[in-house]
């Protein structure tokens, strides 16, 4: 028997969720989904891009990732609302809970999409399309937002199907339908084909998914290496991966932050690195993980990206140590141009490693620092992140733990009513 895989994708997730929240929890009468609207970052903090937009806003040509200024030029009446990450988490959780009622094998692919292996449970509902429609309607009835469901025999085809026509629809893309439904689409619609790959394929005269599927594999291999094989099999609807209901362990931990002002002195930049190292190391320690490789990335005011990495003498998750290494990397990397964004990333993760290579010259500092870090983590867990901060961040412009979702994005400030 063939496998049966669903891909479920929330229609403009952040915006839908905010709309449902405003309608049913706050009691607003206007539905954001019916007017040109968008979830957008804070211009003043230079986080000013569109994170999600409604279908009416899409008609004006507003795209996710546009800057707020560009979006307003396209659609002057655009209603913009703040991001609300606490809500997204609650919605995502409730969404996944409903999927798990349909099948025990659910892979959360991102905050707003999931794969569901229905091979064993479709019999409970009759046919695949009936099950998918039931799933979609149940989510709408209980949670108030719409989803698209793609139905097929493997993950790539299901994902392609859920992307067809939106919103609130079920589409099938079984192997026998590939030719009629998928091959006529432009090649950039294919999963894993981004801007760069699209350009290369266009240069080869490949413009549709069908043309890609019929291209000689050796040609693709010579131009795109391994990636050519991947997209070739995707274009032919071949995907062997299984729905993994358990998330694989993190391969790396990193955080970056766009600073509200351009940084042109090393000491401020190093403070930002410290706040990033604090965040990254807290996450590493929470997962009992240590990193062997540390990397620092810089985006300057001209949007030029650069990064630099090095291997540690032994794996670590100690904030001070990671910060020290980051500063060293930063000094080697930075050309002095004003900095817009900084990042600290770690990789080559070691888990559950209790042994630590003691360095003759470190004396017993590591043990002390590790204990200190654990004490700080425990205090923060109990009394909140701000209960204990390094004195250097007191009254400064930099928050002591940068990166990830900043505090104000968790919950917007509504002026009245319930929050």
């Amino acid at each position, binding site marked *: 028997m063939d496998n049966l895989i669903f891909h479920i994708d929330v229609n403009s997730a952040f915006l839908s969720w905010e709309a449902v929240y405003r309608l049913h*929890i706050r009691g607003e009468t206007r539905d954001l989904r019916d007017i040109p609207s968008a979830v957008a970052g804070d211009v003043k903090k230079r986080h000013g891009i569109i994170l999600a937009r409604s279908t009416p806003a899409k008609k004006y040509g507003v795209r996710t990732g546009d800057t707020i200024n560009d979006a307003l030029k396209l659609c002057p009446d655009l209603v913009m*609302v703040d991001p609300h990450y606490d809500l997204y988490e609650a919605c995502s959780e409730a969404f996944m809970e409903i999927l798990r009622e349909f099948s025990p094998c659910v892979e959360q692919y991102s905050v707003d999409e999931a794969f569901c292996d229905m091979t064993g449970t479709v019999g409970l509902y009759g046919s695949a399309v009936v099950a998918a429609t039931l799933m979609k309607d149940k989510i709408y009835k209980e*949670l108030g937002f719409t989803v698209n469901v793609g139905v097929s025999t493997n993950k790539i085809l299901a994902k392609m199907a859920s992307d067809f026509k939106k919103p609130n629809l079920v589409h099938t893309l079984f192997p026998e339908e590939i030719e009629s439904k998928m091959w006529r689409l432009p090649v950039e619609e294919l999963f894993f084909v981004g801007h760069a790959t699209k350009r290369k394929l266009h240069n080869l005269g490949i413009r549709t998914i069908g043309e890609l599927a019929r291209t000689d594999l050796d040609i693709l291999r010579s131009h795109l290496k391994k990636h050519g094989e991947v997209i070739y099999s995707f274009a032919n609807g071949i995907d062997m991966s299984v729905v993994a209901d358990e998330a694989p362990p993190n391969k790396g931990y990193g955080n970056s932050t766009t600073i509200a002002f351009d940084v042109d002195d090393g000491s401020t930049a190093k403070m930002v690195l410290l706040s990033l190292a604090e965040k990254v190391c807290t996450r590493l320690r929470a997962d009992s993980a240590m990193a062997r490789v540390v990397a620092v990335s810089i985006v300057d005011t001209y949007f030029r990206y650069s990064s630099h990495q090095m291997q540690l003498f032994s794996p670590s998750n100690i904030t001070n140590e990671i910060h020290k290494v980051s500063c060293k990397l930063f000094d080697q990397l930075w050309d002095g141009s004003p900095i817009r964004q900084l990042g600290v990333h770690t990789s080559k993760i070691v888990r559950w490693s209790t042994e630590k290579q003691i360095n003759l010259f470190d004396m017993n500092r590591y043990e002390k620092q590790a204990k200190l870090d654990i004490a700080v983590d425990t205090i923060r867990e109990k009394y909140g992140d701000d209960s204990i901060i390094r004195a250097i961040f007191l009254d400064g412009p930099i928050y002591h733990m940068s990166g990830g979702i900043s505090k104000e994005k968790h919950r917007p400030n509504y002026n009245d009513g*319930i929050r």
Partner: protein
Amino acid sequence: MIIESIRKDIVMLHMPVDVVATFNVQGNIKPNYIRLEDENRILQTYKIENIIFCREDKYAGIPTILFCCNIIRGGQVQMINIKYHVRTHQWVLANEG
């Protein structure tokens, strides 16, 4: 650009209210009294005469329990909808069914 704070099209939001409720041994919740402003903007306590129906919702992943009930206000029976927020333990006066 429409600035959110000066929007006038939102007529009335769900309003947080004080409620006296009983919780029975099975965990069922029954609101008994509710405090609302009267015409003169003075807080008055109204007895909840009867509950017409209640329903559990989970819109936007937020669990709430909606109670549709009757109170007597100014000598007349008035139907109101109140919602209990399970996570935050707040009661709100809802403007929807």
